[in-house]
């Protein structure tokens, strides 16, 4: 196991100063975020919300619009609809650190009267203007993006009073980038983690969240859980004290429950083992992240069932889809309606007891064993740091995300969907599973359909399995 405390970040202040200086901002400095966050009411902190007792999962929509006025309208609409967390989803140019293009398109879109960006260009708007988005809002705001190098974005977000930062060096690189070097991304996310650990008040630390759905395409549970655990440990190493692991609806109820159990169990085990038992870990469930039905009535059914599942797996928060998911960026009204609908469903299940069945136990046992094997491999890499070990495991294919576009992702792990729509490992690539585990995966996969279909045809069909 790697050291509990990484001493090698003594020069973060220098780097912060460089990052801020390069942004050209004359208002942002090293203490801006810290000062503002200390002045915020505690109700605005995600970590405080996670500590609170509740009867149902928190509800968080997604949402980012280019203009400040549009985003303000969305924020207020979601707040009124009962969202427990308010999202701020960032546009693609900002995600890829192309702030100049984001600013140019923001201006052009404003002049032409239509949107040229697919999210809120936070760096272009700046922290001061963004703070005003949340006047009168008394719930936490969550930053959603997909950025391998989120250093400046995180600086601005924290200075704007955003208290939950989603992402990580793996989950925001492998599914979102093609060539951004994974080791660079991990180093940049080390900055973000340490920054989050440094600037929050002691009684209300900044909350970090990883993004478990990854490519949301036949990702086996072991991969999801391993990525979440790696990012949890990397964050804890930098001093993050409040963190949420997450995953997306798999398509199998039994696997959904089993993944939740394994995530909680392994997170606690590994944090204790690494000397971070005080890190508070939440669990986030993403409603179906695959292709959505275009027909609104079907989309609503899927949203409702996903909402119920989030309660049954014991999630602390559910990230909500909208009935316009299949069409594009949802309208404000549609987004708010989804929040109300999910809240309606969740209120039907006060104090739902955890479920169990033979199939769930079987899945739990298999996934847990697989996760242990892979995490042992990660943590026993002959290297001096967890970051380098994780990077090695990506490059060598030990961590392998199906269908990830990234060039450094091995792409040798092959999965298929078996009985009960459970995701099964067909071929492990370089993922170090035992022979017994692979044999069990094969047994559970069962005989392949005798319809003459080829693997690639089944995979293609699976993309639209609920659409």
């Amino acid at each position, binding site marked *: 196991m790697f050291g509990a405390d990484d001493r*090698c970040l*003594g*020069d973060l202040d220098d780097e912060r100063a460089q990052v801020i200086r390069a942004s050209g901002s004359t208002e942002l400095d090293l203490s801006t975020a810290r000062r503002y966050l200390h002045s915020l009411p505690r109700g605005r902190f995600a970590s405080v919300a996670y500590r609170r007792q509740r009867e149902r999962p928190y509800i968080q929509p997604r949402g980012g619009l280019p203009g400040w006025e549009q985003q303000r309208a969305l924020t207020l609409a979601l707040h009124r609809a009962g969202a427990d967390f308010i999202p701020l989803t960032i546009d693609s140019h900002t995600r890829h650190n192309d702030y100049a293009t984001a600013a140019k398109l923001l201006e052009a879109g404003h002049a032409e009267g239509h949107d040229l960006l697919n999210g809120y260009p936070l760096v272009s708007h700046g922290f001061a203007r963004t703070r005003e988005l949340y006047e009168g809002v008394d719930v936490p705001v969550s930053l959603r993006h997909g950025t391998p190098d989120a250093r400046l974005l995180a600086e601005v977000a924290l200075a704007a009073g955003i208290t939950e930062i989603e992402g990580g060096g793996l989950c925001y690189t492998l599914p979102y980038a093609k060539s951004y070097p994974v080791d660079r991304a991990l180093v940049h996310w080390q900055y973000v983690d340490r920054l989050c650990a440094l600037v929050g008040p002691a009684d209300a630390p900044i909350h970090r969240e990883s993004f478990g759905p990854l490519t949301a395409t036949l990702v086996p549970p072991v991969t999801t859980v391993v990525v979440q655990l790696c990012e949890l440990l990397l964050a804890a190493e930098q001093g993050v004290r409040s963190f949420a692991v997450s995953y997306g609806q798999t398509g199998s109820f039994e696997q959904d429950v089993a993944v939740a159990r394994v995530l909680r169990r392994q997170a606690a085990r590994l944090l204790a083992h690494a000397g971070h038992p005080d890190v508070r870990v939440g669990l986030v469930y993403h409603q179906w992240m695959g292709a959505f039905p275009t027909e609104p009535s079907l989309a609503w059914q899927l949203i409702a069932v996903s909402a119920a599942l989030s309660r049954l797996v014991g999630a602390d928060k559910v990230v909500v889809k909208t009935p316009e998911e299949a069409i594009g960026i949802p309208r404000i009204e549609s987004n708010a309606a989804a929040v109300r609908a999910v809240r309606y469903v969740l209120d039907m299940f006060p104090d739902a007891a955890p479920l169990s069945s033979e199939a769930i136990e079987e899945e739990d046992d298999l996934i847990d064993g697989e996760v242990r094997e892979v995490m042992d491999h990660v943590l026993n890499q002959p290297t001096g740091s967890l970051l380098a070990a994780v990077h090695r495991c990506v490059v060598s294919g030990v961590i392998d995300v199906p269908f990830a576009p990234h060039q450094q992702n091995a792409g040798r792990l092959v999965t298929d969907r078996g009985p009960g729509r459970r995701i099964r490992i067909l071929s492990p690539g370089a993922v170090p599973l035992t022979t017994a585990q692979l044999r069990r995966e094969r047994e559970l996969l069962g005989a392949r359909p005798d319809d003459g279909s080829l693997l690639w045809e089944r995979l293609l069909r699976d993309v639209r399995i609920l659409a």
Partner: protein
Amino acid sequence: MTSAGTLLVDVGSTVVKVCTRWRADRFSAVRRIARLPGVSPGDQVSELLAGRSSGVRAVRVCSSANGGVPVGVLGLSGRHSVAAAARAAVAAGGSVRYERLLTSPSGAPAPPVDVLILTGGVDGADHHRLRAALAGARLTDHPHEILVWAGADAPEVAALLPPHHRTTNVLDRHLRPSPGGLTDLIRDLYTSDLVGRKGLGALADVAEAPIWPTPAVVGLAAQRMSRRRLLSGVAAPFVLLDVGGATTDAFVCTELRRGRAVRLAPDSSVVRQVFTDLGVVASRPALLGRLATDPDLFDLVRAVAPERSRALYHDLCEGRVSALAPPVGFLCCLFLALRRLAAPDGPHGTDLRRAASVVVTGGARSGASTTQIRRVVDAADGGSEVSRAVTVDHDYLLWAYGIQDVPARSPVPS
């Protein structure tokens, strides 16, 4: 100087090292004298000798050689003749630029080399396959100045490609490496080139032994060190690293090699590896390029400069030359050389964890403390906590130990 001794001189690219050998393994302190700009190494050393003639009984000289003589290898079998020839050339201080098969011509022309080694076949065997391969060889695709035949001892084969030099086959009749003849030849070619290029001709006349390249001299010291202790605290099996301006040389006790490594000559006790892209002066651009894309860069910066690792990481990613200011460049070479030696799937196959000692020598280490070096060695070995001595040749004595073993005469075969 109170009594006569043998003056030992190592002519480097930036520094001349001088000491006196009083008797076997007994030396005066090593003096490091900066090279004079505009004065040839030969003239500078001659002047030095003139000022000391009263106390000097004899002179021995070695010289670093800007990375070694460039060598290409073309042979019949990658696992046997080519591997043996390449290893022989490296042991002699050569820098192997490519290894190719006669039977699989590469589409791209080879880079120019000073010496092209042709090899293949077994003495006394049927050579029809070798003759066919040589007949098809396109030497114009392998530009060179000197052609050496180090294959089967068969006049009709060598006659196909009249070489400048012939030496004994690098394989014996049991396909075991037999590098001695080729090693001697390459070293002598190297030495002649050195003597000519650095203006050391006058010195060669007064020296009691041929002027050898410094890496080969350090190799002699390594051979001796594998048999008995030369430096305090150094036990075999060891890895010895000599970081220079153009290359980093590694001398590894053969018992540290893993099973799948290339076969060695039966009498080898230390094998030399040379990394031509790891050097702190001439190879600095190549080093920067390697570092920017090195998958282990994060481990490296943590070990090299833990107090400013992130800043160094970014500087190296961006290829800033200033990032390699002493001793960072030296420590980076050390780290990368050890990682390459120890890579489980790499060609060098060294089990670093079984090394009782890691020894570091060479003038490039300017300013690096033993603590820093130890940290880099441990990090390169995967952050292991293996109990192992890390010894720094602070007094630059290894080359002195080695130069006293250079045989008095080693004529260049024609």
